[in-house]
């Protein structure tokens, strides 16, 4: 069917039609030729009527199929031929001897009407190929043609401005003759246009129209040659006209009636082809998509099955629907198949926990959030197992329906939990032992003071009592024992302070370090003046610190800077610079300096670099400084050049963390 549009029946019918019309045509022509010999007026009337009938037949045919045809340009031509027919009718009626119009119009009127009709005809045939595949509004086109026809007729009958075509005595005017040639040229143009666009029209219709145009040109040429209205060329012209009109009719019948099936089938075939192409394309796409989906599903499936984390999908809220081997392993089942149909209740240690879990967490799943918790689940044998759980609802619609599925990813974290637990215990132990140590140091220092007091006390009681019995050396010994005891007391005092840094520190509070520094300066005022030291300081920030400890820290560093300084003009500068996470402070002096190998050692308790007779001190000061800075989350270090001075740096964090 698709391959063979013309069925044998159809071609048979066509052939019959052709034979019939040809035979009828030849008979009609012959009859007309004979008739023209006897009564030319009658011949002309009939010939014209015949062409008018054809023109109107064209119109009515076209008008009735205007809604169903896809040959819209033919509809345009059909409408044009209606009005051409009207003008031709007027021409026939105005013909010499018809006696319809006043005789004063003479032979000029039919000739004018003739020329007008031919102009209209050639115009419509030129426009015809231009309108191929264009959408037209038949009613609008009809109105346009009607308006144009009325106006053009108006130029002849009403305004009488249409150029004369026949002058009584002078014969045909120049206008008439030139018009005939012009019309020939217009028709030639129409032919060229049609030929150029022949691909857009059915080949049979093209052939009929082309022949029609050629014959119309022949008709026009015949009329240019005629000498008398009754001669042969006139006759031939009319024949040609009838044939050309008939061919237009045939073209229409061809495209609109005789061949509607073929046209229909052609459209159908085109549509079917398009549909088949689209279908094939779609099938191809579906195949591609299917294989993509299959690949993705396969990928997911293997990922799901071989994943080293447990995965399961719950359906209907809390029922196990799908899981992987790793999940079964974690929960102590032989395979995921064994878990099919399990309720989540079976995975919780008890029903209360199951309920509490739902109340606590399911709200987040309902909101489409990813839920992440660490939670103890129950294995098949009833033993607990620590798991990390991540859950997410699979439903992508809102509101979320959890019955549509929830994906859970879980991992066994028992070993981590165990390690965490151990770490926690170790930390606790460490903290306890640290506390105990500090407590011990405190108590020890405290209790050490009592015997010391006794030693000093009794020695001092001894001195006046035995003054007489002791020689100078004996008195010296007592004095030195007392001094030693005093030194020991300082040591104990410092140890006490040291042990109190962490245990007895005050809470951190927002502190203006400038105020703290002013306090330190005033306490060191006497020593600064004694040494005639030059102290310069920058502005300090506000920080969350233990103000007493920072005061102690600054005092020790300043005091060291003063103490270990033999310069004739001791200079101490203190400042601070802001860094990314902390402030870096410095205390710089121009004192004796420290050898690099001692940079670490000076911060160790009781480590002294100098003999007692050179510089007093217990060797606890910098250790205390270090402890204070560390309690605040900072660090302390020194940079120095022997003989040039030392700079102690320490940092204090901007954000308070920990304690």
């Amino acid at each position: 069917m698709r391959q063979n549009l013309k069925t044998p029946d159809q071609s048979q019918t066509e052939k019959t039609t052709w034979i019939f019309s040809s035979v009828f045509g030849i008979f009609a022509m012959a009859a007309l030729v004979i008739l023209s010999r006897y009564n030319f007026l009658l011949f002309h009337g009939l010939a014209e009527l015949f062409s008018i009938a054809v023109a109107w037949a064209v119109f009515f045919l076209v008008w009735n199929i205007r809604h169903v045809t896809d040959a819209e340009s033919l509809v345009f031509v059909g409408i044009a031929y209606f009005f051409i027919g009207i003008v031709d009718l007027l021409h026939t009626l105005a013909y010499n001897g018809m006696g319809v119009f006043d005789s004063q119009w003479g032979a000029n009127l039919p000739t004018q009407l003739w020329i007008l009709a031919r102009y209209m005809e050639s115009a419509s045939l030129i426009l015809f190929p231009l309108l191929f595949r264009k959408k037209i509004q038949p009613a609008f086109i009809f109105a346009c043609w009607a308006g144009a026809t009325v106006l053009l007729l108006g130029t002849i009958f009403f305004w009488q401005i249409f150029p004369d075509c026949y002058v009584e005595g002078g014969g045909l005017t120049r206008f008439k003759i030139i018009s005939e040639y012009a019309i020939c040229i217009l028709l030639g143009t129409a032919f060229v246009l049609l030929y150029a666009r022949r691909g857009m029209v059915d080949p049979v219709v093209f052939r009929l129209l082309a022949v029609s145009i050629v014959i119309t040109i022949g008709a026009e040429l015949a009329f240019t040659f005629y000498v008398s209205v009754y001669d042969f060329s006139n006759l031939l012209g009319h024949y040609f006209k009838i044939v050309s009109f008939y061919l237009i009719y045939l073209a229409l019948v061809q495209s609109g009636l005789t061949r509607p099936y073929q046209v229909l089938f052609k459209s159908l075939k085109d549509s079917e082809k398009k549909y088949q192409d689209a279908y094939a394309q779609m099938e191809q796409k579906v195949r591609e998509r299917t294989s993509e989906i299959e690949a993705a599903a396969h990928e997911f499936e293997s990922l799901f099955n071989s994943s080293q984390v447990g995965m399961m999908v719950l359906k209907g809220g809390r029922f196990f629907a799908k899981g992987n081997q790793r999940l079964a392993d974690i929960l102590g089942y032989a395979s995921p198949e064994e878990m099919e149909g399990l309720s989540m209740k079976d995975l919780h240690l008890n029903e209360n926990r199951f309920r509490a879990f739902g109340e606590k967490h399911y709200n987040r799943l309902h909101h489409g959030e990813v839920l992440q918790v660490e939670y103890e689940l129950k294995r098949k044998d009833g033993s607990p197992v620590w798991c990390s759980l991540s859950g997410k609802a699979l439903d992508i619609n809102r509101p979320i329906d959890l019955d549509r599925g929830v994906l859970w990813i879980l991992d066994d974290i028992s070993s981590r939990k165990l390690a965490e637990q151990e770490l926690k215990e170790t930390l606790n132990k460490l903290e306890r032992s640290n506390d105990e140590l500090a407590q011990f140091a405190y108590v020890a220092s405290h209790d050490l003071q009592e015997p010391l007091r006794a030693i000093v006390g009794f020695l001092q009681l001894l001195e006046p009592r035995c003054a007489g019995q002791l020689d100078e050396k004996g008195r010296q010994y007592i004095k030195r024992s007392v001094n030693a005891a005093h030194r020991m007391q300082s040591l104990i005092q410092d140890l006490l302070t040291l042990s109190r840094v962490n245990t007895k520190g005050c809470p951190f509070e927002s502190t203006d370090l400038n105020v703290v520094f002013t306090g330190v300066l005033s306490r060191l005022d006497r020593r600064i003046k004694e040494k005639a030291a030059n102290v310069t300081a920058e502005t300090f920030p506000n920080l969350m610190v233990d103000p007493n400890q920072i005061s102690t820290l600054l005092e020790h560093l300043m005091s060291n800077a003063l103490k270990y300084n033999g310069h004739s003009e001791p200079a101490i500068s203190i400042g601070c610079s802001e860094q990314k996470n902390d402030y870096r402070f410095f205390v710089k002096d121009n004192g004796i300096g420290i050898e690099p190998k001692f940079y670490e050692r000076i911060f160790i308790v009781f480590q002294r670099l100098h003999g007692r007779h050179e510089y007093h001190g217990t060797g606890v000061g910098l250790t205390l400084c270090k402890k204070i800075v560390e309690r605040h989350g900072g660090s302390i270090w020194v940079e120095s050049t022997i003989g040039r001075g030392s700079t102690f740096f320490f940092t204090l964090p901007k954000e308070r963390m920990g304690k």
Partner: protein
Amino acid sequence: MTNTDNVKPAQVLLVEDNEDDVELTLEALKNSRLRMNVHVVPDGVEAMKFLRFQGEYEGEPRPDMVLLDLNLPKMDGREVLKEIREDDDLTDLPVVVLTTSQDEEDICKMYKMHANCFISKPVDFLQFTEIIKQIEGFWLQLVKLPRRR
């Protein structure tokens, strides 16, 4: 018994477990110009018994001042002070905390418990003597205390 008669010796209760400290304190008090009876008890329990004239302390005088050490066996100085302040008969008794402690926390706590004063014993005996002199001068001579029944 009244405290108005300066001829009568002042009664002082020293609560101290360390014998060395007792000795040194007594030595320091010896230098006093004041006539003074110093009673010594070695722990808190004994101190309370003394203050309440219980057991062997029946017939002992009521002290004009208590010198109280903090770290004591059986019942420490903090508890003793607490009991004194909670006892209607003793609540107005001047209590001087005399201890080796310099702990801020102790100091605050003792004042909150209405110790009359807190004194940290210095290591140096000469300084200690000076302090004792000032304590007795202040508490036994200078200040007016409520009349005893």
